[in-house]
């Protein structure tokens, strides 16, 4: 209603409105809950996991392929390790992947995007063209190619993913910055002779914080998914590391014998990604950010 004017005292604060909008959608609450649960599990893994030893080393050949039971809720794997414990510890690795990848991408992508948009000139051309090149290869494909260069292990797969991820931030930041650049307060700063870096990082950047926040939230999920995918294709973490993607791909060999080996780690990946998706989407509504994907 265009008639409600905004000065009157009893109006809700910006935060209240946000919260109101957020909690209006059950989906985003579900997302929030999932994220919290998984984080807690990751943090307290050693306390929660019934057989912490199994996550790292420890083989009990006598006890292999036990179907889910009270002793082993998720069953045991081909060398008799407790799948539940491994899944629990896997959450740590997954979150690590998500966070590391996104952090690197932000650190690399954001400055480049700002420079391209604000400084412009040859910088803009170079940065944006390079970005285009990266963006025109499907991330998974590129990550795969990069991962192949190094020894297959968790760190390298994280690097590989980051290598394919930063351009998305360049693109996003670039677009945002271009529009913000046009606004008055930027011109004001320029007129009072603020330094380029000041304007970029102190004036423009804060104005796209919410957009970035949403992007990051969504991306943590997608990065985890990508990490799992690489693991599945065999360029991820190596045994006995309990990474979800790797567990799924190793479990496949025994699919017809032991469904639980593939089912539970996969489920874990799914929930994590779903969580960050729902939450990120809720965040998007809440900060009303316009963004595809």
């Amino acid at each position, binding site marked *: *209603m265009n*008639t*409600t*004017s905004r000065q009157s005292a009893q*109006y809700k604060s910006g935060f209240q409105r946000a919260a*109101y909008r957020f909690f209006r959608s059950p989906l985003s609450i579900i997302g929030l809950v999932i994220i919290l649960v998984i984080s807690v599990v990751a943090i307290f893994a050693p306390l929660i996991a019934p057989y912490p030893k199994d996550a790292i080393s420890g083989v009990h050949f006598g006890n292999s392929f036990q179907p889910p039971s009270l002793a082993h809720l998720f069953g045991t794997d081909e060398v008799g390790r407790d799948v539940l414990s491994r899944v629990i510890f896997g959450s740590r690795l997954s979150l690590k992947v998500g966070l590391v990848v996104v952090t690197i991408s932000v650190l690399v992508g954001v400055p480049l995007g700002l420079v391209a948009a604000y400084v412009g000139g040859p910088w803009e051309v170079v940065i944006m063209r390079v970005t285009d090149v990266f963006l025109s290869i499907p991330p998974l494909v590129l990550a795969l190619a990069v991962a192949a260069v190094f020894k297959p292990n968790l760190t390298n797969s994280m690097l590989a993913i980051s290598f394919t991820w930063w351009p998305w931030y360049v693109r996003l930041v670039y677009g945002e910055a271009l529009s913000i650049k046009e606004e008055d307060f930027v011109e004001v700063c320029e007129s009072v002779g603020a330094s380029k870096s000041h304007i970029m990082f102190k004036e423009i950047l804060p104005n796209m914080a919410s957009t970035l926040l949403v992007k990051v939230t969504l991306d943590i999920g997608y990065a985890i998914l990508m990490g799992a995918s690489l693991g599945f294709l065999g360029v991820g973490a190596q045994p006995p590391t309990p990474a979800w993607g790797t567990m799924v791909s190793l479990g496949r060999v025994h699919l017809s014998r032991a469904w639980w080996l593939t089912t539970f780690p996969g489920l874990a990946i799914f929930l994590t990604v779903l969580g960050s998706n729902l939450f990120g989407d809720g965040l998007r509504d809440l900060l009303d950010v316009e963004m595809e994907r």
Partner: protein
Amino acid sequence: MSQHILEIKHLQVWFHTIDGVAQVIQRAELVVEPHQAVGLVGETGCGKSVTAKVILGSLPVPPAEIKQGEVIFCNEDLLSLRVKQRKELLKQSMSYIPQDPMTSLNPVFTIRQQMVDLIKWHKCANIGLGGLLGLRGWTKNKPARKTALQLLDYVNIPAPEKIVDSYPIELSGGMRQRVLIAMALVGDAQFLIADEPTTALDVTIQKGILNLMEERIEERGIAILYITHNLGVARRLCARICVMYAGNVVETGPTLELLEDPAHPYTIGLINSVPKLTKESYVGIEGTLPDYLQPPSGCRFHPRCRYAEEICRNTPPSLREVGEHRFASCHMIERFR
């Protein structure tokens, strides 16, 4: 059995917002006779368009909530009809000219596509898959196109053959408004809502459109509910005028009488606020529309009313007959008349 074509009785509409309940329409009363043009006048945000939306059934519910009231159209209460039936009824006998010609034509279809479909199908409720895929009724295309051209010509569009194949974006505002009018004339509706059809246009074009409305629509004897904030326009087109303030119909009556001798302080203010060539200066109304979240008690106009007294602050006035076919809602009428 009333002979009214449209009658709105004590309509009350609230909006549920984050900040609380906005009591946007408190008491709307409206009557439109067949073949008659009625002007619904008031400043922007007084609830005119909401009223129109209620009639058209395009009001988003929620957040809106129709607390009470009846909208009787062709002897049917639109509010109590089932959605499907209401839509049918409207399609058959109501028509609509929107405020903003820029957004009111589908941007990705040519005028021809839109009009032809309209002409071909406006009568039938369900065209099914066949109609959608153009398997049905393709024979009607030729005559439909002819009709379209005639209509465009009828609304004084130069070289219809050219216009008909262009996309809305290629046309000026005035042209689009004419096209919209032409489309409004497709079904032979007996009632038409015109929601400020000229405000989005610049003055020179307004005139043309107004003429068009006068000649083409009145000569077809279609009843009009003409929503405007411009008394001049209303005076020119309408037989009767309905003045709205802050969600209330505060005065209604035959155009000339009402304008010559307004019965409600707000109407007076409104009339004075119209720049006249005769008078050198003009008096506006102090203050702004009230906040619908906590509207003033009693008469909603009292904070801005120079005649306001105790009673105005406490009890809301109701419409009273103040002359032949004339009604106004004010405690103080006797005082200042």
